[in-house]
């Protein structure tokens, strides 16, 4: 791993809290690492565990899923389902040998611009530590 490795981190943010939180971080001019690529989804419960796997396959070194705090979900309970599913996914990924540092989940509300910064810093730092993901990345086929 080279010292100046810059990881690709894919973040799935829920439309109502975390995306607005990241937006707030932007409008409040909070500095955070630019390694993160945000994909907006309507709810963290909409994040299919296969998204996480696909992201890793297609070039992500880390994945972050962020939603509303429990009890604050716009759709009442979407983030509870997400918590269950992605918690299981994290266990499974760890079991098959994907570094647990590569996958994080967080709750960031629309008013938590500063928490968003901390979450991104932590995620990017962990992805940096874990290094480039070589596991089951999709390789270019050369004939």
């Amino acid at each position, binding site marked *: 791993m080279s010292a100046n490795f810059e990881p690709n981190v894919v973040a799935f943010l829920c439309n109502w809290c975390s995306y607005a939180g990241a937006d707030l971080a932007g409008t409040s001019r909070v500095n955070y690492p630019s390694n993160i690529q945000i994909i907006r989804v309507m709810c963290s419960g909409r994040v299919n*565990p*296969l998204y996480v*796997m*696909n992201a890793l*396959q297609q070039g992500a070194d880390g994945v972050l899923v962020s939603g509303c705090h*429990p*009890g604050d979900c716009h759709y009442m*309970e979407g983030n*509870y*389902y997400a*918590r*269950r*599913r992605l*918690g*299981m*996914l*994290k*266990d*499974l*990924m*760890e*079991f*098959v*040998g*994907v*570094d*647990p540092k590569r996958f*994080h*989940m*967080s*709750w960031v509300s629309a008013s938590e611009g500063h928490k968003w910064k901390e*979450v991104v810093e*932590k*995620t990017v730092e962990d992805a940096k530590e874990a290094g480039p993901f070589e*596991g*089951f*990345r*999709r*390789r270019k*086929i050369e004939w």
Partner: protein
Amino acid sequence: MKMDLEQLRKTAAEVVSRDDVRYLVGWKQGTYGYRVAPGFIEDAAGAAELIFSPLCTANLATYLTLAEQLPVPRGEEPDDRKVALMVKGCDSRAVVQLLVEKGIERDDVVVIGCPCPGVIDADLLAEKYPETEDLAEMKWDGEDFLLIHGGEETKIARDELLAEKCRLCRYPNPIISDIMLDQEVETWELAEDEGVQEIEGKDVDERADYWAEQFEKCIRCYSCRNVCPLCYCQDCVLDRLNPTWVNRSVNFSENTAFNIARAFHLAGRCIECGECERVCPANIPLGKLNRKLAREVRDKYGFEAGVDPEAEPFQASFKPDDPEDFIL
């Protein structure tokens, strides 16, 4: 402990003669060696073919959802008679889980429970006693197995041949049944799940290497999915082309994705019947993935698949106090 075949066949004949039963799914002698085939019995005479022995490893609950649903010709009524099914302890959990998920209706099945003292691992058996063309029989003999082959009777110690799933089995008696064929068997002392513990003892890189070696072998025949009693989606995400979740090409990346997706879709649903591992032509230890997830679900969320027909499906429910120590 010893299953009375006469009684089994008599009961089966009675069930299959009922007006409200379409056919009965049970085990029958295969065509050679140690093989046992699923038997679809439609009349009382056919019931004479049925057997129940330590060779009956297959989980027949698969056939409940696998049966082809042909369109009903105009002017005819759909055949809504029941299907009778012979189940061991583990198979009955599959039936319960299907009921939980509303994959089948309780009124559509007649469950014939066969308390099971543990079945054998056919690979282990064939290793020690090579399989020949002529048929062999097997029986439970007290604690041990009795192999009857070419007029010779061989007693084999239980520990030698017992399948891995049975070493870890906590439910040898059917959980639901309409008819119970025999006395309940006593549960036995559980072995430690060494396979899973061994992998848990490794660090992340070693685990990655271990699974890389396993998933490299996968030929993507989808047998594990097809045989699974709980993989019954008509439109499976692993088959989808638009969007393509998992590419069809057989390489390490897609194999890993396939295997993770398959295991994940069984999180909180797998009833540990071990069929996926049994049918895998590449001998990938799929059971370890499933058992690991099942154990996490049990330890962390206090949920166990296929035990309570009234339960909510694990992945379609939640508790406000689910563990969230992994959240930043």
